[in-house]
Every structure is written in structure tokens, then in C-alpha cells.
């Protein structure tokens, strides 16, 4: 066998004249070298970034967005909103006047994530990785990036003022924002159930009172930009041309910012205020406006079937008071529709407060998910169409009414929000119903059901155990004791001075 046949490389004997194979290898090597030189010097910068980005994408993004970038990753079926399908080249959040986002727009979403969705902030990755991922994402729909991004020129900023907010509210109705977002912005507009995105998936309008969930960010500039150029791929159109005057974009922004707080300000403890007067049943009474709300965040129940990965109710505001006879809970929560339910796909809206049946003496409490077979829980529950009732539960499906329950209450539904008052006597008899005492840390948990979204039974949103604390009743002693102490001090001083003087005289 001729030697040259296997000397495919430079390791062949130096005395052997270069064979045909060697020459071929040489020319291939030099061609390859030239090619590499071209690739690494002349190719557009994103080409090499995209290759590095692919590695990051396949490690971090593929589970939701899919190998092909079509949004069909392993987790996709459980998520709502669905992961973005990059192959259409439609991107929700842009700072541009046309459909093409800038690299910076994509980079910002990768870095900051999309609040209220399953897209987390990827700031944990090195900036270079994030930039490379952006380059790779663009390769799924190269057509979409042919047209260069055109910068959106926002009208001159108008600061917030009463007049501006008023004008914003007028515009809000004039350009029919309320049709989707609802009269008070709680995502309860008449067309909210029919909304679909470009892919045919149901899409909920933004709840404008919960700015912390805005997909593209909660800053004024971000909000103005969303109004001006819309949210691509969703039914949210661009309004820059639709408003009467360009600065109306800012009036609308100011109005939206006025609708709710910047963050949910979650409570860690539920404080029950002590009151002297009778507690009103009406949730709309002025009485309740003076009580500080405790905001409680609720999450999906994913322990028992059916699991609820996308809970509809994420926040309940709790105002609680007690007097010498009663304890009352005033709850408000957003729900886009008041639902009694057909029992098949929709169910009655409901909410419940959970307590241990007796105030626990130690630190042990029943299982937070409505107790278990051995240790049950007490529920103070309101249900649409049924009203308030007292229940005993031994697990999420084992509920039984407590005979002789005497809780009462009233609910009002208005503009996508429930307001409910539930009342009960402070003291209770029997082993299934707890009594409430001041100064004691009482475990409490919450559960809520949006029947219109098919929530019922274990399909709910819930919390783990929180603590409830009844404030000490304020006594009148604070008006008497300090003045009495002051008087006594003066009297003693007077006596000392008198004694000193009489001695001086002698």
C-alpha cells in the first residue's frame, strides 16, 4: 500500500515529496483559512453573535419558546399568555413607529422580562449572552427585520394635573378604551371575553389599575409608547393617529397612572382595627374608606387536581374591624364578570377566609390547603347566589356547612370589582368555630374563585397561612394618666420649694 495514501497531513515523512493528497489538503486548508478570515472579519456582526446566542437560547429559552422558535416548548401548553412565537416576527413591545423593534427593545424585554407573564427577567445572564440571544431570535424571522426600525417620536410630554387627568378620561371614552379595558380600567370591558391574539389564543386586556403587571413596563414613557404604537399581535391598536391632538397620548397616560398604585404593596400581617360604633353591612359605606387595607397576594393551587397554573384572582384587599360583639371583613377583588355559573364551564364566583377551628395553642396549624382528614379548618365563605356561610373543611373537596351558622354579609359588584362585607360574632361556641380575641396572633388564609374563568373546587387561587391580629381596644386612660402624672409632679415640686423657703426664712 503506497505510503502517501495514509499520510493525509503534515505528519508525513519530511523526505517524501508532497503527494497529490497533501497538495489537496493544502489547498483545502488554505481555502478554509480564507473562509474563516472572511467569516470573522467581513460578515455582519450579528451572524457570529447569533451562533453564540443559539447556545444560550437552547439552554435557557427552549423550554417555553421551542427549538424552532415557534413558541411550542415543553411548558407552552400550561402557560397563559402563551410564549412568543418568534417565527411570525411580531413583537409586542416596541419603541418604534413601524413593526420592526430595535435590538435594544428586544434586549430590554429579555433583560427585564414581561411582568404578569411567565417571561422572567434574564438579567442574571451576562449582557453579552443576552445580546447574542437577541441576534439569534431575529434569525427565526429574518423577513421581519428587513425594514429598518423607525423611531417613534412621542409628542412633547405633558405632566400630570387634574385637568390633564380629566382630559385623559374624556379621551379614554372617546377612543373607546373602555370597550376592552372597562370603565374604571379593570379589564372588564364588554368585548373582553372575545379578544384573541394573532395566533387565535384568548388574550385579556390589561387591568389598568394594576400597573405592575404592564407587559412593557409601568413607567410613564412606556405607557405613552404602548398607547401611541399599540401592542403588536394583540387587539391593542396604535392610537397616535386616532387621538384628537398628539398630546392626548400624555393625557391618557396621566389618566391611566391615576387609576391605581405603582406596586401591590403586599401586607405580611392582617390588622383588625378596633371600633366603638356599629359596623355597617354595606360595602360601599364611607366607614370602610377610613380603614387601612391589607393587600394579600394570591397564587394558583397546583397541589391537587385540577391544578390552576393561571389563577384569575391575584390580589385581595382586606379591611378588617371588630367591636365588642362582632368581627367584620371587608374584601375587594377584581373579577372581569359577575358569574353565577352554568355548572359546566362556568361556576359561581366565591371567596373564603380560612381559620383553624380553635385558636392553636402551639405553633402547629392545620394543612394550609383547607386542612386534611385529621385536622380540619373553619371557612367563612361567600358564594355568588348563596351569600355568606360558615363551613368546616377537611381538604379542598370535603366541605360541610356548620349547622347553626350565624354569619351574614353583603356583596356589591361594580365595574369589574367585588366589594364584600362578611360579619360574625366575636365569640363562638362549639368545636368547629373559632373565637377571636385581641392581642392573639390568629392564623388566617384566603382562597378565591373566578367562576367565569372556570374556577371551582380545587381550581382556585390561594395563600398559605398569614396572621391576623386584633388591635387592642383603645381605652380612655391615655387622656387621664399623663395629666395626673404632671399634676402630681408639680405638687411635689411645690412642696419641696415651700419647704426650702421656710428653712431659708428660719
Amino acid at each position, binding site marked *: 500500500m503506497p505510503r502517501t495514501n495514509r499520510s493525509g497531513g503534515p505528519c508525513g515523512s519530511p523526505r517524501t515529496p508532497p503527494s497529490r493528497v497533501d497538495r489537496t489538503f493544502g489547498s483545502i486548508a488554505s481555502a478554509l483559512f480564507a473562509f474563516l478570515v472572511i467569516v470573522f472579519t467581513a460578515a455582519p456582526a450579528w451572524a457570529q453573535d447569533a451562533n453564540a446566542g443559539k447556545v444560550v437560547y437552547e439552554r435557557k429559552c427552549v423550554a417555553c419558546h421551542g427549538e424552532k422558535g415557534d413558541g411550542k416548548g415543553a*411548558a407552552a401548553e400550561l402557560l397563559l399568555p402563551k410564549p412568543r412565537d418568534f417565527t411570525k416576527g411580531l413583537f409586542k413591545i416596541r419603541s418604534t413607529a413601524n413593526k420592526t423593534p430595535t435590538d435594544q427593545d428586544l434586549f430590554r424585554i429579555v433583560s427585564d422580562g414581561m411582568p404578569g407573564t411567565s417571561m422572567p427577567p434574564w438579567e442574571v445572564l451576562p449582557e453579552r449572552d443576552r445580546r447574542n440571544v437577541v441576534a439569534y431570535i431575529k434569525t427565526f424571522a429574518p423577513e421581519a427585520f428587513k425594514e429598518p426600525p423607525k423611531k417613534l417620536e412621542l409628542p412633547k410630554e405633558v405632566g400630570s394635573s387634574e385637568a390633564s387627568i380629566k382630559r385623559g378620561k374624556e379621551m379614554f371614552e372617546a377612543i373607546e378604551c373602555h370597550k376592552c379595558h372597562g370603565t374604571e380600567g379593570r379589564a372588564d370591558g364588554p368585548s373582553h371575553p372575545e379578544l384573541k391574539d394573532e395566533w387565535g389564543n384568548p388574550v385579556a386586556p390589561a387591568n389598568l389599575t394594576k400597573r405592575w403587571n404592564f407587559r412593557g413596563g409601568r413607567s410613564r414613557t412606556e405607557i405613552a409608547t404602548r398607547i401611541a404604537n399599540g401592542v403588536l399581535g394583540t387587539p391593542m391598536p396604535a392610537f397616535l393617529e386616532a387621538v384628537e391632538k398628539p398630546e392626548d397620548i400624555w393625557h391618557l397616560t396621566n389618566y391611566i397612572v391615576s387609576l391605581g398604585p405603582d406596586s401591590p404593596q403586599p401586607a405580611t400581617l392582617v390588622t383588625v382595627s378596633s371600633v366603638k360604633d356599629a359596623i355597617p353591612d354595606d360595602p360601599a359605606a364611607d366607614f370602610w374608606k377610613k380603614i387601612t387595607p391589607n393587600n394579600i397576594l394570591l*397564587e*394558583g393551587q397546583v397541589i391537587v387536581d385540577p391544578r390552576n397554573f393561571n389563577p384569575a384572582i391575584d390580589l385581595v384587599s382586606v379591611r378588617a374591624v371588630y367591636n365588642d360583639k362582632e368581627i367584620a371583613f371587608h374584601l375587594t377583588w377584581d373579577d372581569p364578570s359577575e358569574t353565577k355559573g352554568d355548572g359546566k364551564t362556568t361556576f359561581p364566583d366565591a371567596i373564603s377566609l380560612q381559620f383553624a377551628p380553635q385558636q392553636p395553642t*402551639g405553633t402547629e396549624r392545620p394543612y394550609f390547603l383547607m386542612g386534611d382528614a385529621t385536622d380540619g379548618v373553619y371557612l367563612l365563605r361567600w358564594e355568588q347566589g348563596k351569600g355568606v356561610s360558615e363551613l368546616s373543611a377537611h381538604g379542598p373537596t370535603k366541605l360541610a356547612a356548620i349547622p347553626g351558622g350565624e354569619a351574614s354579609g353583603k356583596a356589591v359588584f361594580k365595574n369589574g370589582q367585588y366589594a364584600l362585607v362578611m360579619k360574625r360574632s366575636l365569640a363562638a361556641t362549639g368545636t368547629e368555630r373559632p373565637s377571636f380575641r385581641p392581642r392573639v396572633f390568629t392564623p388566617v388564609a384566603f382562597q378565591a374563585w373566578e367562576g367565569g374563568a372556570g374556577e371551582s373546587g380545587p381550581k382556585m387561587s390561594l*395563600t398559605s397561612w398569614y396572621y391576623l391580629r386584633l388591635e387592642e381596644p383603645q381605652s380612655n386612660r391615655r387622656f387621664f394618666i399623663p395629666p395626673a402624672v404632671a399634676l402630681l409632679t408639680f405638687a411635689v415640686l411645690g412642696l419641696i420649694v415651700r419647704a426650702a423657703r421656710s428653712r431659708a426664712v428660719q
Partner: protein
Amino acid sequence: MANYGSSDHRSLQEKTARELIWTSNRTFQGWTCSQCEWNSPLPTLLSEADARTAYDRLAAAKFREHVAKGGEIYIRNCVYCHGDNLDGKGHFAPGFNPPPANFQDPGTIAMLQEAFLFWRIAKGGPGLPKESTPWNSVMPPWEDRLTEEQIWQVIMYLYDATGQQPRRWEASEHASH
């Protein structure tokens, strides 16, 4: 229960993968020892060195497969609390106290053995001992939903994705000397 008892239809790859995992990590104690035993399944015409290489390759491939499966289980079940980046910042995290474990933190899975993780995942919040209440963990008992093998796959994924190493007896003994 996953059917670990039957060994008749186990392939060479599975055996070799388990062997690798056992020898490298030593602490997959949830697996019964009959599966850990070396029962020389390799063809005799290969030299021992060649056999080792072939065996390592197969085992490594199988390991990647387990990790990939673990990743899929994680993203469909665990991500809601423990987060995409395994840092305990999932979408449900803000609502629960104590917050979900942050696996990136060297004070969590790196301080534990795989066997502990297996128990903690399988039994969840309700399985925690009564002596140390008040537990307020909302961790579901995953034995209701995942098989034994799936739990091990998730554990492999947790260590692989975070780059953490399970705590080992030798290391702790060494430290105490």
C-alpha cells in the same frame, strides 16, 4: 412506585448510566443496590480500556438524556415557584412565605445530599417532621404526581443546571478532621 424491581429488560445503556451515576456520585441511595452492581455487561472482544471508553460515552449520553427529561419535568411543575433560573423567583413566589428555595444559592442543594432532596421532593410540605413546626411550606408532595425515576431526573437537572455538587460524606468527614 416505579418498577425498579424488574431487571430483565434493562438495556446496556441504562445499566451503564446507572453505574456511572453511582460511582461518580455515590449517594444515589434511593436506588437499591442490585441496580448498582457491576455485572460486566460488556462484549469480551473489546480491550478493557476500549470498553471503558465506550461505556463512558454511553453513560454520558444517558446522563444528558436524564438531565434533559428532568429539565422538562422542572419546567412543567417546579418553575412556577422556583423560577426559570432556579433562583426561587417563579411567578408564584411573591405570594408564599417562606419563599421557595433558591437552588443557585450555595446554602441550599449544595449543602444537601441527593437522598435528602429525594425525600423533600417526594414528601413536600406535609411530610416535614412535626417536631420542627411551624412549617409553612406550600411544597406539594410530589410522590403523588412524579415517579421515582422522574424525581431522580429532576434532581440531576437541579445539580446540572446550577453547577452545584451534592454534599458528600467524604467531604464532610474531611472537613471535621
